[in-house]
């Protein structure tokens, strides 16, 4: 194993998807997966397909909405975009994340 990759940290796939949609605007599943891989560079090991179960859940939560569109290969695909509730949720999750990392950082930086 030359380059150690990590799985998506537990519970953060939602955050990653919401953030991606926030930055990139509406997009379909494939380009979203590619975008996540791009941003993660070589650090992340993601099965691209695993975003779909996450997407249906976010949709049921009404944080994202879908529209039917046409892909570059001329197929019917779902185009996902952030809802207002989704944008609010993103802020909450970012805050939570920052609070959590800040907390963990304190412990890591603490001197004996």
């Amino acid at each position, binding site marked *: 194993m030359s380059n150690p990759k990590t799985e998506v940290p537990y519970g953060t796939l939602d955050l990653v998807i919401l953030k991606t949609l926030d930055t990139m605007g509406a997009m379909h599943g494939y380009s979203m997966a590619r975008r996540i891989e791009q941003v993660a560079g070589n650090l992340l090991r993601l*099965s691209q397909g695993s975003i*779909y179960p996450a997407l249906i859940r976010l949709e049921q939560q009404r944080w994202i909405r879908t529209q039917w569109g046409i892909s570059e290969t001329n197929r*019917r695909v779902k185009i996902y975009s952030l809802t207002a509730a989704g944008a609010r949720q993103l802020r909450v999750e970012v805050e939570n994340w920052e609070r959590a990392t800040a907390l963990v950082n304190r412990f890591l930086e603490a001197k004996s």
Partner: protein
Amino acid sequence: MTPGLIVRRLLALLRSRRLDSELEDEMRAHLELAERDAMASGLSPTEARRAARQAFGSIERIREDHRDKRSVRWMETFVKDLRYGLLLLRRDPGFAFVAIAVMAIGIGANTAMFSLMDAALLKPLPFPEPERIVRVLEAPTPTRRNGLSTLNFEDWKRLSKSFEALAGLRGLSATLTGHGDPVRFDGVLVSADYFEVFGVKAALGRTFRPGEDQPGAGRVVVLSHAAWQTKFGGDPGILNRDIVLDGESHQVIGIVPRGSFGRDEATFWKPLVFAPDQRTRDYHWFGGVGRLRRGVTLEQARQELNALSAGLAPLQPEWKKDWRAGVDPFVDGLVNDSLRQSIFVTFGAVMMVLLIAAANIANLMLAKGVTRRQEMAIRAALGASRGRLVAQVLIESLILCLLGGAAGVALAYWLITAAVPLLSISLPQTAAVTLDGRVLAFAVVASVAVAMLVGTLPSLQLSSGRLTSVLNLATRGGSSSREGVRRTIVVAEVAVSLVLICGAVLMFKSLLKLQGVDAGVRLDRVITTSIDLPFLAYPDAERASRFIAEVAERVRAIPGVESAAVSTDVPLQGVRQGQGITVPGVTESQGTRFKRIDPNYFATLDIPVLVGRGFTDHDRVGAPRVAIVNETLARSLATKFKLSDPAQVVGRIVKTGNPMYENRGQSGAVTDIEIIGMIRNERVNDLEAPTPDVLYVPLLQSPRREIKLIVRTANEPTASMPSIREAVRQVDSSLPLGDVRTMEQVKRLNMSAKTEPAWIIGIFAAIAVLLAALGLYGVLSHAVNQRRREIGIRMALGAGAGDVLSYIMKNAAWMVLLGLAIGVAGALALTRVMRTLLFEVSAMDPLAFAVAAFAMTIVGLVAALVPASRASRVDPVKALRSEG
């Protein structure tokens, strides 16, 4: 989870197929795009496809995950199992039909019986805070109850602080005229605050105002909803109408809502007004009901009224100075112990039928399970957990039982509409037997309980260890343990059925005994009816006497009439009035039933006068008072007179009150009365209890407005009814006749409390036996099918058809006998609860048990004969070849 999310997830469940296909589309598009990009970066098409797949991950896992995330997992499998279960049922409609029909019988009987029990015993009375409603009566001893006297009632009402409302009531049978022929209209005379006691308000108009029960108030009536609908066609202008009751015009002031007193019956309420001459303490002529004040307990009310009674003692006649008040829960008067007992026992019986039905369904499912084992084993081998397989079996039984339960509710509805009107005479007036929410809830709970019971057995067989071994067996492999379970079920069915038959046989035997009891009166070719003379047209004894004599004479003149009598009471229907009589020198009075009869009564009913004479036309107003005693009273009086022979009381003189004509609330003067004869006992109340002390006095000496006509005819008595009606009409055309019953019908009515449970239990016992026989038949014919090969081998080795027949029959006999042994033990334990329902039959009657066991054996062996004879006709060659 928010409610909205739950709804969306449940919706996802229903849209499962569409969501799946949408996901497929998306994944396909995704892979295409990935392939295209990979090719663009220089990979060959094959390499590009592999790379795209690899980056995507396991499609199957994504699918599963998608389903998991979007909905409730167990719900999804549940729906799947449900679909599969329904599919299986459609594939085997014969099995489905039998199982559902068996279940429908079990649930139908139970639901109908529960609705009856609910209405009669469980449901609270249909009044607000019914626990505050009490019955108030006078109490000669702490346990006995007697009607109220006017002045005591008024004093209690005025002085007590325990009651929010206290009302008197007395039944009244009136004649309604002005709508074609005069008709009888039964109602109740009640105090003005009667409706407050029950918390019933008028739906239309109003109920009585305070003071409307005082002398001089206007004549007003309140109608029940049913009366308004049936007697007055639901006339919306009814409140502006007057109706004529007993020749007097009454204003209808209100209609009470439908069902406000439970079962809706056509009736009316009219103020109970106390006339000045009714204001006495020694005549007990009406009942009382009260509503306790909030916070007052029954015991407090009792103590208060008893203290009041003690204080009023100096005002009472000498013989009732020790009387106190009886305050009892209203509900106690509606349901007596024997009714409660009958309902419990009958309900127990239908529960047993349900158990047998459940056993049958379990049996059917087990039999079917043999064919399903391979499927189950394969599924287990493919990784289905045992829990999943058990869940599937349970869901299948749930489908069966709920479908059966639904059919059962339909059956129960039919039973209730068809049978309950026949039973309602035995039920409390407030009991409205309906299929309401409570009853439906019961049906659902019972169905689900059966489903769990039925599903558990087959699913226990699904232990995974055993399942895998099934795969190794040939298709034929019926396992012996499964067979064992099925046999056990049949044995249990036989046992439970036997308990039921024992119960039914005991009931019928007791019924036969009761039927055989000598009523002491002639029953055939005697018809009875009643006439209530309105006070307005018959204000005094003289006019009533004239009417009675004239009607009797005209009826006797009808061709085909052998004899006709008039009395206050019909045999077997109780004696309305009671009187105390005193023997000179003895202070304690002798309580008697006080029956007034005309000179033809004994002759018409074939009651022999044992000593002395009967009444004659000369025993009338003005002549010396005379009385006749029955044997029981003669014995009681002989003790009082210290005579050795009861016959010697004839000729003695005792003292008793002479009730005035009409209930003017007075016992009338207590005077000497001579005993001129003794008759053989007639059954005045019922066939079971010993005949009470009865004092007979001439109707013409103490006439009464409510009278019965008893007519003996030469031929079929109902044929004479038109002429009898005509005879009455000729004397007074405004008088309707009451219920017409032959004496045989009177007897049947009298026995109905015993007949009805006997028939219900009998019918259910028969159903139970048939179900048990069905179970036995199923197990045996299955066994025969499974063992064709074995039987074939036996026959090939020289066993004859007779050997095979007896082999199978022995098998069956073994199951039946074991069931009988257990059943007899169960019956000995269980029939004891019906002891109080039986009449002169021991709950452990050996003959009844023998008959029951014999019947069960016969039915069982007949059920076994069919598969056994099929087995004996097995062709060994074919049997051996077919399953090589």
